[in-house]
């Protein structure tokens, strides 16, 4: 039996082959022990501070918002080592890997950010990493593939299925079902079977905790809303976790609407999906009438996933968090605006959250404080965005 709750309402669970249950139970136990172990916590906190660069800054935007009633803050996860929030929980899981006496790490990656974070943590800790990446993603994220290999990780292109993130997850789980004795599956988002959604949330919850302390220091009160993008949902759950019990703070998750949620090309699992099981968890997923998984789409590879973490499904159902969606075009627009007005180039993923926050700022009629989780920086997206926009924005 599980020691931690494996479900969020009906969502979550452990829908995996029986074969993987002992490995998931071992992971749950290692996590429970580590959370209570002061030595583990000291090592984790030390790495976050001295290696990754926590706490990250909180920046009040100067020029972005025209509405004088609105203060828009950015939680600067883009400044974290590795270029995105991903490094937080990867360090935690890499420490758990060592604690379990395992020497190898398996991971999946879409845009390559989780792969890069995994590669750097494994280089640091002397773990052998193999990272599954959809063949299409290997092509369109070449710089991140090079980064991973430079840090000693093996990158394995996955040709099966759609050749994107969901197929990389499938392949990682297949690998794990043969290698669990010496390998840890370092899942990259707050999805998948229990205990991953809980572990990933807890190893990212400092995002929200720091935000709370920083905003109290700067403003003397809690924000009116925190806004984060949602693919699998790891940066969002890290931002939300410490605010769930603060009813005055709106929690807003922003899903990728791609070319529009009225088209087939989007990744809004909560907004347009239906309930089902993918990658071990019951949640909102994108599927056809028979339950075959549909391919998602987003300009942002990190949000291009046809499911969502189970806790987000639950927070949506109980009305505690609100989930909206933002199109490719709106995200690209926010990407450019932040670059031009504040000198910060955001990741395309985070640009989705920012785009929605800008709409909120325009519409606000009362004094409003908004915090956007700027989950990653845009360096990885430069070539992609350049190919979309051409040289039009150089005037």
């Amino acid at each position, binding site marked *: *039996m*599980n020691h931690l709750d*494996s479900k969020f309402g009906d969502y979550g*669970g*452990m*829908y*995996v*082959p*029986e*074969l*993987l*249950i*002992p490995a998931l139970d071992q992971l749950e136990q290692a996590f429970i022990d580590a959370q209570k172990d002061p030595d583990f916590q000291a090592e984790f906190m030390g790495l976050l501070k001295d290696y990754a660069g926590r706490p990250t800054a909180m920046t009040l935007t100067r020029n972005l918002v025209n509405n004088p009633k609105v203060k828009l803050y950015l939680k600067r996860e883009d400044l974290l080592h590795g270029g995105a929030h991903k490094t937080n929980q990867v360090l935690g899981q890499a420490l758990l890997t060592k604690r379990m006496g395992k020497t190898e790490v398996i991971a999946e990656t879409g845009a390559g950010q989780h792969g890069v974070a995994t590669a750097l943590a494994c280089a640091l800790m002397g773990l052998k990493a193999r990272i599954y990446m959809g063949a299409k993603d290997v092509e369109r994220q070449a710089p991140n593939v090079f980064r991973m290999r430079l840090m000693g990780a093996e990158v394995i292109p996955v040709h*099966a*299925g759609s050749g994107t993130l*969901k*197929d990389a997850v*499938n392949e990682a*789980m*297949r690998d794990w*079902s*043969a290698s*669990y004795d010496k390998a840890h599956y370092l899942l990259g988002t707050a999805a998948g079977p229990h205990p991953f959604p809980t572990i990933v949330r807890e190893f990212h919850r400092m995002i929200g905790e720091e935000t709370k302390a920083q905003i109290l220091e700067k403003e003397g009160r809690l924000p009116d809303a925190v806004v984060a993008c949602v693919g699998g949902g790891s940066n969002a759950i890290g931002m939300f976790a410490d605010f769930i019990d603060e009813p005055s703070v709106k929690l807003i998750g922003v899903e990728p609407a791609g070319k529009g949620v009225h088209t087939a090309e989007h990744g809004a699992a909560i907004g347009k999906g*239906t*309930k*089902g*099981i*993918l*990658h*071990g968890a*019951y949640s909102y*997923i994108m*599927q056809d*009438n*028979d*339950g*075959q*998984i549909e391919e998602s789409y987003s300009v942002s590879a990190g949000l291009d996933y046809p499911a969502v973490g189970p806790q987000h499904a639950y927070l949506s159902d109980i009305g505690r968090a609100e989930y909206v969606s933002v199109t490719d075009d709106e995200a690209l627009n926010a990407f450019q605006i932040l670059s031009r007005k504040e000198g910060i180039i955001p990741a395309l993923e985070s640009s989705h959250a920012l785009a929605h926050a800008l709409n909120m700022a325009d519409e606000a009629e009362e004094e409003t404080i908004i915090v956007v989780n700027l989950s990653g920086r845009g360096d990885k997206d430069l070539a992609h965005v350049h190919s979309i926009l051409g040289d039009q924005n150089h005037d």
Partner: protein
Amino acid sequence: MTNSVANSIDRYAKLFEQLDQKNEGAFVPFVMVGDPDISTSVNIINALISGGADALELGFPYSDPIADGPTIQQASIRALSNKIKTDDNFEIIRQVRAAHPNIPIGLLLYSNLVLKRGIEKFYQDAMNAGVDSILIADVPLREADRFIAVAKQTGIKQILIAPPNASDDTLAEIGEKSQGYTYLLGRAGVTGAETAVTIPASALIDKLTQYKVAPPLLGFGISTPAQVKDAIQSGAAGAISGSATVNIIAENLSQPEIMLDKLQSFVTEMKAATHK
């Protein structure tokens, strides 16, 4: 209503009883329903039965089969690219059942196909099509109770998996809950003939007996008559062979007549190895 009357017979119990009398183990081939298309799929299943299959294990094509290696994945892709639907799968099984009233038919599939149709409706449709058992690859014991409850209501047998790393607690629970047969995993990993089965230690078989699990059929990595023989000698009630069977389909897609001949003689050879 002939179907439901026929289905009230416990085909697995009857099969194991008959095999016992003949001093044989069971040989159970696996293929993907709808691979590569509806009419060939019906012919394929009939060829397996003509070859001497004791029971059938049938997969339903799924987009994200995490427990399957490349061979079975490709079978899913072939069927899905021919737009095979769940309704088609049940229709194919209905045709097979109409021609073969006695052979046990088991489904091996993934949970989302069941949930999307609704657990009750899926199991009832399976029953009406002539299915005897359902094994859901990504539903471990911990999530199985609501499926087992519906299985009992509809008369379907819920098949449970005993992995090689199972704890005593897990085996005891399988003993309490298993019906029809128990799918004994021959090794870790995913389906595929590339990695051979590990014949279970007699200690494991003894434990299965001790915990009174339904008769164990050994699967994963079985592709030769020698492996079938070893499985049965080790104490398994029979052997399941999936990827080796599906490989014959994949290698002969352009020559369906030869494919059917090869499937039939493959099953005959594998079946011959079940004689104790």
